[in-house]
């Protein structure tokens, strides 16, 4: 249904409800998968079907989102995305990234609370002298917490090895992505594709190095999810970051493939910019992580 406002409103679409079925399968399957895989607190005993339902849900979601965005891309190519709708997409992406920032914020908040308040309290600081004396008399407060109150020992991840390299990798990738963006604005397609491809390669390199770091932590350093609060925060924070890098890399690959097909121009590049913003966000989160989880 056209409207003289030039603001495109799709008449109807089956993708939202179809996606919801996938989301439900992912959630329901995911919960069961985790229970059945860890063997703890299993609601539906006997069986390992959780991971199949979860996988089905994820695939279903990916397929639906692809079909949904195919519709959106066609609308964009059809010239329906100019003007206000473009602004809507930009605002939407911006606010979405803000919600992701707040998600990480909850974990950074937990990190600072634990480091500056909880661990000293367990060591007897402030009003918690008796906590230390009565419950954890042998505990010494320090950060990184390499020896927990109940005696688990671990090691801290050194900032200036792999993590520093990863920082360089991500920072470089942001630079290459910016170069690619300028190339897009100037209409230099080959340069655009090249630098975007380099960015993708750097993203994959980051993930590879991160996986190596995790492997090293698990096998040689005794730094695991089970290694007390330091291990918990380390893996959960860098882990979620890694998930976001993965999503960002996939997003960049998709827009790269669209670039190679001739999509995007100076006037019509929202999706490309959205991927770029996401990538820069991921980079900035890494900088905060590097400083507060690895370095200080």
């Amino acid at each position, binding site marked *: *249904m056209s*409207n003289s*406002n030039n*603001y495109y*409103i*799709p*008449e*109807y*679409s*089956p993708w*939202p*409800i179809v*996606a*919801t079925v996938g*989301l*439900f399968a992912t*959630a*329901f399957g*995911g*919960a069961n998968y*985790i*229970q059945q895989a*860890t063997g*703890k*607190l299993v*609601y539906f005993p006997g069986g390992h079907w959780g991971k199949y339902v979860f996988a089905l849900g994820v695939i279903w979601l990916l397929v639906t989102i692809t079909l949904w965005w195919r519709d959106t891309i066609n609308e964009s190519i059809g010239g329906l995305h100019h003007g*206000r709708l473009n*602004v*809507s*997409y930009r*605002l*939407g992406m911006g*606010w*979405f990234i*803000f*919600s992701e920032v*707040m*998600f990480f*914020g*909850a974990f950074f*908040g*937990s990190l600072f*609370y*634990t480091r500056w308040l*909880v*661990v000293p309290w*367990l060591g007897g600081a402030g*009003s918690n002298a008796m906590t230390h004396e009565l*419950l954890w008399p042998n505990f010494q407060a320090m950060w990184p917490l390499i020896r*927990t*109150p109940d005696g688990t020992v671990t090691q801290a991840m050194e900032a200036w090895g792999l993590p520093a390299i990863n920082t360089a990798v991500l920072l470089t990738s942001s630079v290459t992505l910016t170069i690619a963006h300028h190339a897009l604005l100037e209409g230099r397609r080959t340069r655009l594709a090249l630098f975007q491809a380099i960015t993708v390669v750097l993203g994959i390199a980051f993930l590879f190095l991160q996986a190596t770091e995790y492997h090293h932590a698990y096998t040689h350093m005794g730094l*695991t*999810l*089970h290694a*007390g*609060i330091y*291990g*918990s925060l380390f*893996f*959960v924070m860098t882990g979620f970051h890694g998930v976001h890098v993965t999503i960002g890399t996939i997003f960049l690959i998709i827009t790269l493939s669209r670039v190679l097909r001739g999509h995007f121009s100076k006037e019509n590049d929202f999706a490309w910019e959205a991927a770029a913003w996401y990538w820069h966000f991921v980079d900035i989160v890494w900088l905060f992580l590097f400083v507060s989880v690895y370095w200080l």
Partner: protein
Amino acid sequence: MSTVAATHEEHHHHGPTGWRRWLFSTNHKDIGTLYLWFSFSMFLVGGFLAMIIRAELMEPGMQFVDPEFFNQLTTVPGLVMIFGAIMPGFVGLANWLVPMMVGAPDMALPRMNNWSFWILPFAFTLLLGTLVLSAFAPGHPEAPDFGWTAYAPLSSKYGPPSTDFFIFAIHMMGISSIMGAINVIVTIFNLRAPGMTLMKMPMFVWSWLVTAFLLIAVMPALAGAVTMVLFDRHFGTSFFDAAGGGDPVLYQHVFWFFGHPEVYIMILPGFGIISEIVPTFSRKPLFGYTSMVYAIVSIALISFIVWAHHMFAVGMPLAGTLFFMYSTMLISVPTGVKIFNWLATMWRGSLTFELPMKWALAFILLFTCGGLSGLMLAIVPADLQYHDTYFVVAHFHYVLVTGAAFSIIAAVYYWLPKWSGMMPSKVLGELHFWNSLISVNLLFFPMHFVGLAGMPRRYADYALQFADYNFWISIGAFWFGLSQLFFLALCLRCAMKKGEKAPARAWEGAKGLEWEVPSPAPHHTFQTPPVVE
């Protein structure tokens, strides 16, 4: 089931019909209707479960359920009411009204809008399923039983297996809310008709702008909190375990960082609604529009720094406790400004008391009662006697039931003519109003007394001296529950197009773009934006 009739003589409606219309919709009116019916049905489901609680608490001793199931009954209905009734109710109102009030053709991102809605029935199937299975399945696997607040380690180390479904249901609801809020913000910032500056927007739109911001900012924190619970449960992390260097109170900080703005999310749109209704029936413009805007913005901003007033008993250092006491007391100033401004709107106006106005006036008085008990709770030494007693239960039910729920009901009465083209039945409406007003006070006011006298909350059984009050509270509960059936009948009647037809401007003093379009509003409105002076 249709509360919106396309007016065929106006334009050709090429959209889908039948079940496809509701499943595949991208229309803000249809999606708003979906949200509102969903919210109403969740209100009835949660209410029914609450009736079981009140049946059990009617007399001392255990008669109907055992203490474990009782704990499940105080957990799941709380989640249902908050995430299934109140929040979707306000989102439904936003969907229906915000585009029309700003002169936009629809919400900014219509397909995402539909997705936000459809996630909810699936998420609640996951959650309510655990309770149904707990009641009827062999072995009675326990549903979540740790209160809607889900404190660790009760939820992490000691939570039943169904806790993981609860966690994933919360994630789904969070995704729905965040996407819905993004849609609202983008619509308000980007799709306003020319000439409608921010300071010319209706108060309801302002209230949703601020609410949407709060939603985007704090739902991720809830996601973080329940994710940490999931990890502590299954992956051996120590977020909430002192033996590993963690702290159970960390959960409370992260949860209430979400939780406190959440309760403002559940009331600010209500404030917006009252600010629309009172001027109409006072035939006078809203008093102090600018300060109302500042008040609502400052309430939202201050709400970020008060969260630990839910945690005064955990043993925070004195400096922290003092800070949160002061910030909490502070938030009553802008709230008071709003209440006085509503009174000043009425003052020397020309008042009539149609049903929406009745509900709005009940809101003003009874929400004030709830707000004042909240001020009492802010005073830390006194709070250390009120905390976790029925005094708190009284407070939050006053602000949530006679506050948020009454405002949603007021909104329905006010805008039903616009949605359905029919005036709500006066007879059913009066029966609904008076029965609800009296019974809700019989239900919740005595809770102040039993709480002060020492009855703790989340108790399956209580000391004998609280017996009389509990009996009358239960009577009030059943009465209030039954009174909502008048409302159901009234809504169905309008949906089935029975009764008096409504004109475009259904209420004489009503102002705003939504009253310029016919009643019922056509399927598509403001395809050409109006010009606002």
